[in-house]
């Protein structure tokens, strides 16, 4: 058991996974690289020393000195990296704990509101129903946010359960368009869908891909100001299916475009009139598509509209 623990301590990839970071951001890996650099530098210092300095003790001092300076630098750098990585890990843990802990009281709240609204405890006046509806809508919104936070926390800790199946992307899109029709109509938005015939199926996690398209549809409809058009198309491109959703909404300001897939990021122009939203949808979408072996991207112009796309491999 002891030996196992020691082996785990020196197993760099395992240690790095704990932080949920890539290898090049991981303190343990950087320490290893620093060690290699120190060894190489010492050898070079030795080679230079023996060539230009004639007395052996002086060469030794010279090599020792350089090694000591490099070692101190390495310790300082990796220490600060370790602190950063630890902060990152704690942030992920915080999201996970908070979202788990919020869910139970929120479930209680939602069911209590439902009980009150059902009339089982006595008749409710029409005016009261109106306010109960507000409570219900807001608790649902909170539940959606917590759901997103939980997904983010699972993505970061690499614990997002994935179950790949074969399914038709086209059918999924058609189902979702139907689901979004009331929202689209209420927002004066027309949704058009065109796809090539005889498209092959894709092999991915159904509920995750569903979430991605839901996010895109929701964004496209919400970010159209008065009335507009959302166009969706699916095509086969090489060994992938290509999905594209184009809107004539507010668009993304150029300076905000590089941050658009970042967690919690919301564009400046959107915050002006659309305060709802967590800034997690696109972060989740990117993680899901990339984990499914696809690519994701967009092009956008402020005031003209945005086009988001992703590809997914055919089985």
């Amino acid at each position, binding site marked *: 058991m002891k030996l196992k623990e020691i082996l785990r301590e020196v197993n760099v990839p395992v240690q790095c996974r704990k932080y949920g970071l890539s290898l090049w951001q991981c303190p343990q890996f950087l320490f290893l690289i620093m060690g290699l650099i120190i060894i190489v530098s010492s050898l070079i210092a030795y080679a230079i020393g023996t060539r230009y300095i004639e007395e052996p003790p002086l060469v030794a001092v010279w090599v020792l000195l350089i090694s000591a300076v490099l070692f101190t630098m390495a310790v300082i750098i990796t220490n600060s990296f370790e602190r950063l990585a630890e902060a990152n890990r704690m942030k992920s843990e915080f999201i996970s704990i908070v979202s*788990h802990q919020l*869910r*139970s009281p*929120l*479930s*209680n709240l*939602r*069911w*209590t509101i*439902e*009980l009150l609204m*059902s009339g*089982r*405890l006595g008749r409710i006046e029409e005016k009261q129903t109106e306010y109960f509806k507000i409570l219900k809508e807001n608790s649902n919104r909170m*539940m959606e946010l*917590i*759901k997103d936070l939980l997904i983010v926390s699972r993505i970061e800790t690499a*614990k997002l*359960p994935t*179950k790949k199946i074969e399914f038709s992307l086209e059918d999924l899109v058609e189902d979702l368009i139907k689901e979004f029709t009331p929202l689209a109509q209420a927002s004066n938005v027309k949704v058009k869908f065109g796809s090539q015939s005889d498209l092959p199926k894709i092999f991915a996690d159904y509920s995750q891909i569903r979430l991605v398209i839901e996010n895109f549809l929701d964004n496209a409809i919400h970010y159209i100001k008065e009335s507009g058009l959302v166009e969706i198309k699916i095509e086969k491109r090489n060994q992938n299916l290509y999905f594209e959703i184009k809107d004539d909404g507010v668009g993304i300001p150029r300076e905000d475009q590089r941050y658009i897939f970042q967690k919690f990021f919301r564009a400046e122009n959107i915050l002006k009139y659309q305060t709802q939203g967590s800034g997690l949808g696109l972060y989740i979408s990117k993680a899901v598509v990339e984990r499914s072996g696809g690519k994701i991207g967009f092009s956008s112009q402020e005031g003209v509209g945005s086009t988001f796309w992703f590809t997914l491999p055919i089985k």
Partner: protein
Amino acid sequence: MKTILFIEDESVLQKTFGEVLKQEGYEMISALDGKSGLRLAKNKRPDLILLDLILPEMHGFEVLKGLKEDKETKEIPVIVLTNLERIEDIDRALELGATTYLVKAQYSLEEVVEKIKKALEK
């Protein structure tokens, strides 16, 4: 009258379900922790058990195991009602013999009541 044992440490839920199930014509017995839940199941032999998983004294999985290992309680259908939604937890509960697994956040109160009614009809 059919009896339902609700093992759940949230008293708010005990109250909410108590009210609804009474209106639906069932008798509900409450247990606020795992140990007393298991004891009550043995003493009262309810027709159905609603079981939360994160419980004081004894974890829901332990309760479920205890219920299914006992000859007198192993036939009682158990609906797990929890906020744990990891696939491992769902699989484990079903393997241990739970009839249905419901994630609280995914169902409305009325939907849960429907599931209870259905389980009691069987």
